[in-house]
Every structure is written in structure tokens, then in C-alpha cells.
């Protein structure tokens, strides 16, 4: 169902006084989760930046019910919680809000298990492309060539394509999203909340601290990722893939902005070679080509 800004609820779920860094994309994402799901959301959050962002107990900067849990447990905890709500006949949208580590790496077996069982959970992967909370170490979601504190000369490996891996779990709903496109994200969340079973949303979340850019430009960087074709917004309902409206124009390569424009905004690519740049462009082309094949 189309969402318009003026119809979005005014109730705030991200309150002043939380502990997020300036320009934090996670806070933006959490605001959108509040707008999309409101009081129906119950969040399960493994270790990561949001463990800190919520602020110090007994206070909290977030107005969701939040169950903080160990890294590798979130989707299972969510599955149990969702079962309890079903048994008790209570309405709730159980959401796992996890970083790329908690999703793609240490949390992956748990995620895959819950997806295969089709547990009634929305998993949101807030992808800031490295282990930011522990101080910018590489993850399987860090792109090729990016500097991190465990890849000083640039990461040697490619970013693991998690949304497609989740698509191949044949779950009822898989989508990508970006903090630069809140309406698209909110629409996807709302759709996911109407579907029973496992829903996966991969939210692209550029991190000013870890990516080395001015915190004023979080949205600009996130938007450039889409405009250069480096991040593709799509959704798949019951396996049927469709490119989402913000990304649609960029199916045509000639309409994409140069990848260099996106990378040059980020200090983590300061020492990028021409060779790695070409490889990243090639990877973007490959990702597009595969998604377009899947969407026909």
C-alpha cells in the first residue's frame, strides 16, 4: 500500500537523549520502524551498535519493547517469542534488528534456521558493512577494497550477497532497503507485517564513523549507493523478484552515476586503485544482471 509522509504517525519511538553517533543511520532506520509498525513491534536485538544506542538502563532512548540477546541467538529468541504470542493469541510483530555481523556472520546459522522453518519473524539486517560497534573490523558484508581496522590495505574479498542467499531459502518475503529511501522501507515493513512466516529486509546503512565521511552526508552517501547501482532496491514476494521504484531507472546502466562518485565520498576507499574500482564496477554490473534475470 503506498505510503505518504503526511499520513505517517507522529508518535516517536526514537527519543532525544539516546547514545547514537551524529549522523547514525541506525537511528534513522529505527525511526522508520516506529513509523511503519508503531506499537505492534517487539524488538529482539543482538550485540551491536543498537545495544549502545538505546542508552543506559534503567532508562532508554527507544520506546519499543526490546529484548537484548547474545549475538548468535536473535532469530531463535524471536521465533520463541513469536510462538508465545501465537499461543497467547496476542498481536505482535516480532522484529529482529541486527547488524551485518549479527546477521551474515556470527548470527547466520540462526538466521538460516529460522528462515528454513519459516518462523513468523521480520529480520532486519542493518548493514553498515563492518563490525562498527567493536571499532570498524571487516565483516562478510564489507565490500572489496574497503579499509577497516582488520583490513588496513583494503579488504581482499567480495561482499557476500545475503539478500539472494535469503531469497534461496524460499521465504515468503525478501527485500532490500536504504536509509535514504524511508517511504520505500516503510512500505516494505508494512507489507512484511501482513505476511505470516519469515520476512527478511536488508537495510543499507552508511556509517559516517566507519566509512569515514562527514556525518551530515549519511543520506547523500546512501542515496549515491543506489544511484550508482552499488546498492539495488528490490523485493521478492514468494520468490517473485521486482526492482523497487527508486532503483528502477538504474537498471539502465547509462543512467547510473559513476561508481567513483560514491566511493570518493568515503575515506575507507581513500587508497582505492583503478583495478579495484573496475572490479567493484564489474561486481555491480553482475549484481544487476543477476537480479534482472531473476525479476523477469
Amino acid at each position, binding site marked *: 500500500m503506498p505510503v505518504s509522509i503526511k499520513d505517517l504517525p507522529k508518535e516517536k519511538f526514537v527519543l532525544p537523549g539516546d547514545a547514537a553517533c551524529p549522523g547514525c543511520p541506525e537511528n534513522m532506520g529505527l525511526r522508520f520502524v516506529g513509523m511503519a509498525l508503531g*506499537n505492534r513491534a517487539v524488538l529482539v536485538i543482538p550485540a551491536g551498535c543498537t545495544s549502545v544506542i538505546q542508552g543506559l538502563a534503567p532508562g532508554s532512548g527507544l520506546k519499543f519493547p526490546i529484548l537484548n540477546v547474545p549475538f548468535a541467538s536473535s532469530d531463535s529468541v524471536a521465533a520463541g517469542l513469536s510462538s*508465545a504470542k501465537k499461543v*497467547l493469541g496476542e498481536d505482535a510483530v516480532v522484529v529482529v534488528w541486527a547488524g551485518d555481523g549479527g546477521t551474515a556472520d556470527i548470527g547466520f*546459522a540462526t538466521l538460516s534456521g529460522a528462515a528454513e522453518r519459516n518462523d513468523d519473524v521480520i529480520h532486519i539486517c542493518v548493514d553498515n558493512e563492518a563490525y562498527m560497534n567493536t571499532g570498524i573490523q571487516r565483516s562478510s558484508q564489507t565490500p572489496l577494497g574497503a579499509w577497516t581496522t582488520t583490513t588496513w590495505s583494503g579488504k581482499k574479498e567480495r561482499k557476500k550477497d545475503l539478500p539472494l542467499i535469503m531469497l534461496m531459502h524460499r521465504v515468503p518475503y525478501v527485500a532490500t532497503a536504504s536509509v535514504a529511501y524511508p517511504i520505500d522501507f516503510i512500505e516494505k515493513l508494512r507489507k512484511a507485517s501482513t505476511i505470516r512466516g519469515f520476512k527478511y529486509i536488508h537495510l543499507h546503512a552508511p556509517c559516517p564513523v566507519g566509512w569515514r565521511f562527514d556525518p551530515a552526508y549519511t543520506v547523500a552517501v546512501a542515496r549515491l549507493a543506489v544511484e550508482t547501482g552499488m546498492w539495488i532496491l528490490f523485493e521478492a514476494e514468494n520468490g517473485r523478484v521486482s526492482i523497487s521504484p527508486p532503483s528502477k531507472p538504474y537498471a539502465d546502466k547509462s543512467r547510473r552515476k559513476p561508481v567513483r562518485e560514491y566511493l570518493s565520498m568515503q575515506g575507507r576507499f581513500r587508497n582505492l586503485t583503478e583495478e579495484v574500482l573496475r572490479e567493484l564496477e564489474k561486481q555491480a554490473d553482475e549484481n544487476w544482471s543477476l537480479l534482472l534475470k531473476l525479476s523477469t
Partner: protein
Amino acid sequence: MVLKTLTGNYAVATAAKLARVKVVSAYPITPQTTMVEKLSEMIESGELEAEMIRVESEHSALAAVYGAASGGVRAFTATSSHGLLYMHEMLWWVAGSRIPVVMAVVTRTIGPPWNIWTDHSDVMDQRDTGWLIAFAENNQEALDETVKLFRITEDERVFLPGIITLDAFILSHTTEPVDIPDQNLVDAFLPPRKQPYVFKAGDPLIMGNIPRDLKWNMMMREDIHKAMERAKKVIEEADSLWEKLIGRKYGGLTECYRCEDAKHFMVGVGAWVGDMREAVDYLRDKFSLRVGLIKIRYFRPFPKEDVIKWLNNASSVVVFDRSVSPSVGGPLYVEILASLASAGVRIPVKGVIAGLAGVDVTHEDLASVMLTSVSEVEELGTFKQNTLWFYGGE
């Protein structure tokens, strides 16, 4: 009352059914497997109205049970050995969250090498987590104590999770006649579930975010310590109520067998307490030795007061452990030493490490250890050695 021949695993599965658990989650591991299979069957046939979450690992099994219990329903899991170790992180999380759940641990040796037979290393590894730890001697006790643990863990004086321990194969796969209590009696015994808080939509409760004051974090551990102490009374109350309704009493945290005039004591936990009873009978009947047996039913909370009470006027005590903390000795041995020292009771204490890795120890073996030990004490007034690695069959 219905008498059935049940394995320990089926007895515990039956107990979970009688407790009307609403969510079960488990990952199969020998020798716990048949318990999970039975529960799956009960749920699929409609005999037990519950959700079964068939997870991909033990870490996830306890995570799912924790999620369900946090959401307000009675939940159950079971595991063994490596599965329990893989869960270890979640054990801390559940106890720290003060969410009551019940788990069965079918004790099994830890590798390497691969070994499916019983010892107590796996469950002893959990002793500092904040879980109550009960040991069953036989299948009847495994059933009874599982049901009781739901009441004990959900008591507001406790609000801690609990483990029921049963030895691999000796109980888990051995059939015994087990009396299955009537459902209406169990319903009378078990009040509706209570827990400190319930996660639900619209109620912005947060569990587990970073504390502003580290002292609160330390106080949380102190509160678990105190709750564990309070649990002693709750366990005894549950035991008495069970006796009143069902007719079976186990003695709360400990049982002392043939202790009235005993001078020399054996101490043990788990299934081989049955063998120890036979050893005591044999030593008394054949050698007229005044030997008694202290059966530790709960390792956590540890029944320090009972131990002091039973051993206050003893001449000697031999503690049998099925696990070891290298360079220190058996965990039970250490607890007995600490309990006696705290009360200033100075008697010879010997720690016997036996039955590790499933090495069989018969009641004759146990009796022979006691014969040697008693003669040492009567001759020398003390033991020749405080720690004995005993391999049996001698």
C-alpha cells in the same frame, strides 16, 4: 495413579506434558534424543497442545525457549554434553534475565574423544550460571522432580531457571516402573505460570541494555545468589506439597540413607546413588560397618546446612565425583570440604574420582573403596590420601 514402564527420557517427556508446557524447542543429541522424539510425537498427535520449534542447534534451542518464556509461556528444552556446552552462553543469559524455564540434561561425557556414556562433567560446567541443578536417582524421581522444578522456578522467591539431571543410558534408556500422577493432581500442584515480566507489544520494556551504574550489575548477581539461597525453602515446600498430593517425598535437597547410627559416610549425586545404597546395605549386613549415605539431590542451591547437619558428628566421609576440576578434584568434594570448613567440622574427607567417561562402577567397587577407607580411618585416624582416582573392577 497409573504405573507404566518408562525410560528416563520418556518419564521426563511425560513430566513436561503434565506441566502443560506451551513451547518445546530442542536439537537432538545422544542420549537426549528419545526425549525430543517423544515430545514431537506428543505434539504432532495432539496429546500435548504446544508449539515445537525444531531448531538448528542447541544454542538456538535454549534461545527459542528463552524467547517463548520471555513472552509469557511455560517452555522446555533438553540436551546433553556438547549440546549443553554449546548452550552455555544462553544459560547465563536466561538466569541473568530471571526468566523461569526448565531444561533436562542427560549427562554425558565431553570429548575428545567422542564418548556417549555418562559422567557429570557437562552439568558441573554449568554450576556458576545461576541455574538450579537437580539430580535424579531413578526415573520416578526424574519425572517427579521435573514437574516440581516448574513450580520451584516460577516461585517469586526464586525466579531462576532449573535443570533436571539424569544419567545417560543408566536412566535415559533404561525402563523402570514409573507412577504417572493424575493430571488433575499435577494441575493442583502447579499454579498458573508466574514470571517477573512478560514481553508484549505496546509495553516498552527493555531487558539487558547497558547499566548506568555497574553496582546494579553486581547487585544482580548478588540477587541471584540470594534467590538461590531462598530456593532451598521453596524446594522443601514443593517436596512436602508433592508428598501431600502425590504421596512421594524425597527429603528436599538431600536424603540421608541409613544414617541414624552411621559413623562413616558416602556422598554422591545422580543414578549411582542407587549403587551406593546397595553398597551401604552390603557393608552393614556383611561387615557390620556403620556406614551411611548422603544423597545430594540439588547441587545448586548447594545444601550446605544439610551436609553440616548430617556430618557434624561423623568419623569420616568419602565423596564420590563423576567429574573433575583438574588440580582441585571433584566439584562435589570441594563443596563438601567448604561446607564442613564453614562450620568448623574437622573430619577426614576423601574425594574419589570415579566413573568418568562412563567407566562402570559397581556397588561392589563402591563397597571396596569404603572398606579400605574405613579401615584407614580406624587404623590411622585419617586417610592415607585425600584424592583417589578409582577405575573400578579391582
